[in-house]
């Protein structure tokens, strides 16, 4: 199988604090990987480097030519008074006057993320699970084939977690989307993810999720 991402000797330092040093790993196209590790291990930092929001202090990474990365950040500023509907939120990165193609795309994504019936619900009034699906839907509008989700299930109840994970499994299965899923929830990762990356003490280890033994909770 071809490689979607290759990370080579990647290091990151903030002032004098070393986050990780010379880490190497690769992700295969269509793989489903959980990025695990204790708080402060540098998971979000690694993700931010991969999406180009941060520059590494040393080393580099390569994405395959046909890879387009989508990213669902960990936090969003959506308060209960937030006015936009789920549909309008998803459409934020589209032109003011939308072509039929964009409208069709939005409708398709609403359907795929099971938000069609909730399209007119205000984001501020949506449940945690609905909001997370809307964040994912917004990222999917760019038509990525590699999606990175940062702690997407952290604040969700068990039912909403299952819904979101089934959706991610569907994207991987049906659209062959490569998934990198940052989480602390090892049981959930064991159920849905196939591989793991474990970031701890500035190093990374990689393997099959079923073989993951370490616990940091």
């Amino acid at each position, binding site marked *: 199988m071809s490689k979607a991402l290759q990370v080579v000797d990647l290091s990151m330092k903030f002032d004098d604090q070393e986050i990780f040093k010379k880490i190497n790993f690769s992700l295969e196209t269509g793989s489903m990987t959980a990025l695990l590790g204790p708080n402060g291990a540098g998971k979000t930092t690694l993700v931010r480097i991969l999406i180009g*929001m941060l520059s590494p202090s040393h080393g580099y990474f390569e994405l395959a030519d046909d890879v387009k990365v989508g990213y669902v*950040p960990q936090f969003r500023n959506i308060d209960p*008074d937030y006015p*936009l509907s789920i549909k309008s*939120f998803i459409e*934020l*990165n589209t032109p*003011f006057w939308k072509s039929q193609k964009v409208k069709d795309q939005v409708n398709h994504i609403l359907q795929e993320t099971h938000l069609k019936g909730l399209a007119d619900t205000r984001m501020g009034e949506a449940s945690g699970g609905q909001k997370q699906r809307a*964040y994912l839907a*917004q990222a999917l509008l760019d038509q990525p084939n590699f999606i990175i989700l940062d702690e997407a299930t952290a604040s969700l109840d068990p039912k909403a977690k299952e819904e979101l994970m089934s959706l991610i499994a569907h994207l991987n299965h049906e659209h062959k989307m490569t998934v990198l899923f940052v989480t602390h929830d090892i049981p959930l990762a064991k159920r849905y993810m196939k591989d793991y990356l474990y970031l701890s003490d500035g190093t990374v280890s990689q393997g099959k999720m079923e073989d993951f033994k370490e616990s940091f909770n």
Partner: protein
Amino acid sequence: MFVYEFMRNAFWAATFIAITCGVVGVYVVARNFSFLAHTLSEIGFAGAAFAILMGLKPLTGMLIFALLGSIGVGELSMQTEQKESSISAISAFFVGLGILFLSLSSSSSSYATNILFGSIIGVSRSSVYQLVGLSVVVLLIIFAIQRPLNYDSFDHIGAAAHHINTGFIGVVFLVALAMAVSIGSQMVGSMLVFVLLTMPSSTARYLGKSIPSMLAWSVGLALLGVWAGLCLGYITNWPVTFFISVIEVTAYLLVYFTQAIKKRA
């Protein structure tokens, strides 16, 4: 009423001011810039007073001060942790400065009243052209950056993750805001410019669920306020600003309480 040229001028100016403030206001509220807009109007007040002292048009001074202030205050509001107190300090300083300029200029107190509370009736034809021109410039700026502005204003984290230059968009918007504050102040005065910049758009947040619908509600409510305000001011001879404030605040409270009752039901 429209047989008088001063009323026709007032309506033309008011219409463009309302459209501009209605549009800009949607982003002011989305970005939590209400306090900043108020501060800019106080900086603008000092600018207008300075212009009078120098023998210039108040609008010119207001524009210069508000534009310079927008960059400085904007930087503070984004960088400083204690932004509220630092912005308050700037507000207080500029209001003080404005009072000093007015006192030094030994102009009549009606000048101060006009700057603080508006003076749309009696606006000359050339001033109307100036206000319309400035409104068009503000609307063109917003139109030119509308896609990243929409994204950044309503989902700052998502926009940053999409590599949108949110810092640049913020600065361009502040320039548009400074201009909107300056022209809005001609209508309702620098003390009450936030009535046009934040009230219609705050009401629109309850009524619209998409950016186009919020823009439409915000502009519609601003237009309703200034048109009705001018008519009522003409009939009663009471200040136009008073009527505009009452109309915008009433609309906001009506919608706010209706929504609160709906939520409870």
